[in-house]
């Protein structure tokens, strides 16, 4: 699974996710990536979110929309909302990660797996990429 979230110089946010799914999937199994609100969501009032991992858990929690709702309704930061949802995912036994960015330009990632391919760049930050959890 791959994804991208961005905020542009006009303050608009967007999210995109694309995947081949899980190796060995059967019966037309679809995970969270294409489900708006589960693996992909964007709302200028809150954030843009793209998720990766055990899709069934992201679907049940509605992770991408829930992050945006917590930011919009409680004033939570993007970072804290992302952290809360990955923690909640873990409590349910789910594994995975997500990236998020707010209209204020704060970008974040959070995951509970050993690694996640990830990267970020901004108008005030050099490009950086990472794979392992301890980077």
């Amino acid at each position, binding site marked *: 699974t791959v994804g*991208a979230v961005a905020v542009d110089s006009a303050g608009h946010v*967007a999210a995109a996710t*694309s995947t081949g*799914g899980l190796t060995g999937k059967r019966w037309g199994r679809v995970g969270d990536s294409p489900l*708006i609100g589960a693996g992909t969501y964007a709302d200028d009032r809150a954030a843009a979110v793209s998720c990766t991992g055990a899709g069934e858990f992201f679907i049940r929690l509605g992770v991408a929309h829930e992050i945006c709702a917590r930011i919009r309704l409680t004033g939570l930061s993007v970072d804290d909302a992302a952290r809360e949802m990955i923690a909640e995912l873990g409590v349910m036994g789910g594994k995975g990660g997500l990236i998020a960015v707010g209209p204020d330009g704060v970008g974040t990632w959070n995951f509970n797996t050993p690694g*996640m391919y990830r990267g970020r760049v901004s108008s005030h930050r050099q490009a950086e990429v990472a794979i392992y959890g301890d980077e």
Partner: protein
Amino acid sequence: MTGWTLVIHGGSGSMTRGVLSTADDNAGRAGLAAALDAGGDILRGGGSALDAVEAAVRVMEDDPVFNAGRGSVFTAEGRIECDAAIMDGSGRTAGAVAGVRTTRHPVSLAREVMTNSAHVFLAGAGADSFARAHGVEAAEPAWFETVERRRQLDEILANPDAPFDSGMKYG
């Protein structure tokens, strides 16, 4: 707001130091950097977040390192079925596709659904037909297939206790 930010991911899973070969580690980092370049150039030039996320994801869909587009994992039946979504925060418009087999960039098909259809989500052969009718670039199934993903499928099918990659070994 004058600044811009792009964040990307290429999948999460059990990749740890020593599990990934140096070559795979380097290939992953190079693929991520290329996606950041593609999306970052658009934002740096004043372009939209929507164009930036589509451009970054298209780069990763073409990169066999990542499980999307070319380099996708196989279904138990030995096929490749791709899913994708895109959403614009300014109007909360969205497009999504699932189970597409013959469209080179599923994320661009999702955007076409968002922009030029009355729907949000199309699935299966219908979604591929919509792609052909709207001139979204096609690709033969062979374009998506890689030897490594075929090996991973064979490995999983050889172990009936793990009927699919529930442990996300392949992220």
